[in-house]
């Protein structure tokens, strides 16, 4: 989307796509199931969508970013349909059909069957054959390079196929690598999503916000040791009336949200399932059951063909019997601090999508994810087209280049050390236990110590010496980024002593609007430690309802705290 817009606005630009996987085929947008939220109907309104988004995000959102998302979403749908060539499901009247999604007051989710992302991504990929940007597939970015003035000069990168390293000089860099949700034992995203962009920006000294906010999807498949474990069963199952049972056969949602039951938002259902499992009412494999067979086998097979096929692969029949599931880590709400034009505090550096924080606040609505990646991708492209011609190519600091390359090559040169696969496993375990669906101080501190240990181990990893397509080597580089992001997450989670959205502290189980309508910013300190600062959420457009804090109090806090404004 970004490339499309940049090329449209300024066709003379020299654009390079750097992707650590296959261009347009790796990452998570292709995996999007549910759909794309956009206000299209005259009966719907931006205000309603905005309210839903803030209610979902528990008012932690950057309201300007959220408003931008909502305002641009219909334009993007429009563009996808009339220029890019996507075709979304139609109603009987031939108009785009919008379906209901959890946590929304209006049926506004545009979709294509139960697999929407593949249509969007495939058609965008087709556009690259028209635009013909320079594509560096299977090339991973290692580090951002800044010049002496602290402005963007380019990046270092590594060709996964050949093992060669190179420097790419650029006038503008757009970071859009996706979040780091793979760092949990049970995780949904594609394997590329190891927080590379966020980690790169953090190392370059940028501010990260809301890092403690990690969304867990309530219905991830449990398939033993198989890699399929964690794959999401789509939200629509709950929407269509699926029941959730614990091992005793109780519909446990009665205890957590008797009104909305299984249709409560993702954070609530995930937490309920997690608590059932943790208090011993889960299945032996550590899960709960989802059952939709009461709709009738044929009906299920027709409406959820993709999901039935997914379960059949592991020998289970979603249409006729309950299937074992567990919460699965899914989406990072937090990320780099940006403005509405995707700009950061570093001139020339733009960040878009899951790498950026603030759009979704404390919890993302289903259907706002692909909306975010396309809306802000487009905006980053538009902005890049404006910024790039104004800037010249900078010279990167040679010492920085050398340090970055040395760090990348080190595991190849060591002869003995731990296996990266084992360390990754340990990380996933540590995060699941200590910084998972439900957190407390003790667990977080333990996870923090464990991360330190693993960071030390990761620095000793040795891998086979072949530089070409060396998965072990790549995993080591991923791991370094994951550990960086994990530390920022845990440090942020320790500070937020309340429960809000996706962040649930069993030792502070209430939402506390009086003190915690503030967002947490983490940045790298001089000595490498995490520096945490707190900033009040600017309620520029809408205040929490119904029981938000009185207005005067907020204003006073604003004055007291001051706000170290991000350079915009």
């Amino acid at each position, binding site marked *: 989307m970004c490339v499309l817009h940049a090329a449209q606005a300024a066709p003379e630009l020299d654009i390079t796509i750097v992707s650590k*996987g*296959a261009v347009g*085929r*790796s*990452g998570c947008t*292709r*995996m999007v199931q549910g759909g794309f939220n956009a206000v299209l109907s005259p009966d719907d309104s931006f205000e309603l969508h905005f309210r839903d988004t803030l209610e979902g995000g528990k008012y932690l959102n950057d309201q300007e970013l959220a408003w931008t998302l909502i305002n641009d979403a219909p334009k993007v*749908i*429009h563009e996808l*349909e*009339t*220029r*890019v*060539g996507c*075709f*979304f*499901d*139609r109603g*009987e*009247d*031939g*108009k*785009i059909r919008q379906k209901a999604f959890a946590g929304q007051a209006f049926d506004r989710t545009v979709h294509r069957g139960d*697999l929407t*992302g*593949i*249509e969007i991504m*495939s*058609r965008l990929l*087709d*556009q690259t*054959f*028209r635009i013909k940007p320079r594509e560096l597939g299977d090339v991973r970015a290692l580090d951002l390079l800044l010049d002496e003035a602290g402005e963007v000069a380019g990046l270092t990168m590594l060709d996964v*196929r050949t093992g060669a390293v190179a420097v790419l000089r650029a006038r503008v860099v757009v970071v859009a690598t996706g979040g780091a949700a793979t760092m949990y034992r049970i995780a949904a995203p*594609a*394997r590329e999503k190891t927080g590379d962009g966020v980690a790169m920006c953090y190392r370059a000294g940028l501010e990260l916000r809301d890092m403690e906010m990690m969304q867990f999807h309530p219905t991830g498949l449990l*398939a*033993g*040791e*198989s*890699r*399929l474990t964690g*794959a999401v069963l789509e939200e629509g199952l709950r929407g269509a009336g699926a029941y959730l049972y614990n091992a005793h056969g109780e519909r446990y949602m009665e205890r957590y949200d008797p009104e909305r039951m299984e249709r409560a938002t993702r954070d609530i259902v995930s937490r309920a399932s997690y608590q059932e499992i943790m208090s011993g009412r889960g299945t032996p494999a550590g899960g709960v059951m989802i059952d939709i067979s009461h709709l009738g086998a044929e009906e299920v097979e027709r409406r959820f063909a993709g999901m039935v096929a*997914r379960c059949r*692969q*592991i*020998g289970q029949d979603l249409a006729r019997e309950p299937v*074992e599931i567990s919460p699965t880590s899914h989406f990072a709400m937090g990320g780099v601090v940006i403005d509405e034009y995707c700009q950061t505090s570093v001139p020339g550096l733009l960040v878009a999508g899951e790498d950026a924080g603030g759009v979704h606040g404390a919890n993302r609505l289903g259907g706002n994810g692909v909306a975010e990646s396309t809306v802000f991708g487009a905006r980053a492209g538009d902005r890049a087209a404006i910024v790039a011609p104004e800037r010249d190519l900078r010279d990167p600091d040679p010492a920085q280049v050398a340090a970055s390359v040395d760090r990348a090559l080190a595991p190849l040169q060591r002869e003995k050390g731990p*296996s*990266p*696969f*084992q360390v990754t496993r340990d990380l996933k375990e540590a995060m699941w236990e200590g910084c998972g669906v439900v957190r407390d101080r003790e667990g977080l501190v333990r996870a923090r110590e464990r991360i330190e240990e693993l960071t030390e181990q990761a620095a000793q990893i040795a*891998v*086979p010496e*072949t530089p*070409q*397509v*060396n*998965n*072990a080597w790549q995993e080591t580089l991923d791991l370094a980024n994951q550990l960086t992001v994990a530390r920022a997450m845990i440090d942020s989670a320790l500070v937020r002593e309340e429960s809000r959205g996706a962040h649930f502290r069993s030792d502070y189980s209430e939402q506390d609007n009086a003190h915690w309508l503030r967002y947490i910013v983490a940045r790298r300190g001089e000595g490498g430690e995490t520096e945490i600062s707190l900033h009040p959420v600017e309620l520029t457009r809408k205040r929490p309802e119904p029981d938000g804090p009185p207005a005067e109090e907020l204003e006073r806090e604003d004055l007291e705290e001051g706000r170290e404004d991000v350079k915009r």
Partner: protein
Amino acid sequence: MTEPSSKKIRVTVSRSDPGTERTFLVERIEPMMVLDLLIAIQREHDPSIGFRYSCRVAMCGTCTLRMDGRAILACQTPLEPDRDKVRLDPLAGLPVVRDLVVDMKPFFEEWARVKPYLEPVEGLDEPARIRPDSPERQIIDPSLDCITCGACYSSCGIADHKRDFLGPAALNRAMLLIADSRDAAGAERLDAVTASDGVDRCHYIYGCSAVCPKGLDPAAAIRRLRRWRLEGRPR
């Protein structure tokens, strides 16, 4: 579901660096996909084995390889419980980068040649009003879910990076755009796909339709294109 079993499976993997193949005895888990097998080899036996995957839910189309000669997605192909040996090869007809990793460039070069992107008709300023049961959607919808995994290309028998043939995936894409009333370049595309390196090179081997992991039928698309050449495009 995950009771421990000591069953092993004998895996033969063709490798590129020594130019030979290697056999591994891998512990079985239940359920087990071919991808799990590769990950187990990587973790327990040989960390240097080259293969690729991304989404592991049959969406990215990067883990395609051949199992006993048949092109499959490693992530969604279970190993049957009674199976005790399996052979894995890289995709056919594409240059091998390393071990099971191939270079998909030739595949996408063919894909690019059919102009795979929409050329919007003039005046397409609003999302087109098209009923889901309209004839064009009846043609398009069942054939739309291509994930460009290359399984059809590998199984084609004609398509090969050393030969001129657009191949099943690209022809299927072209068929979809020609059928789409929102697209203006249909005539041009029909000319391209019926040229000498187009539909006429197909011999109805049906390898493509037999292996497509998304259940598409590129052979039907090719038959349709051949018919449209004689009867004109559907409009």
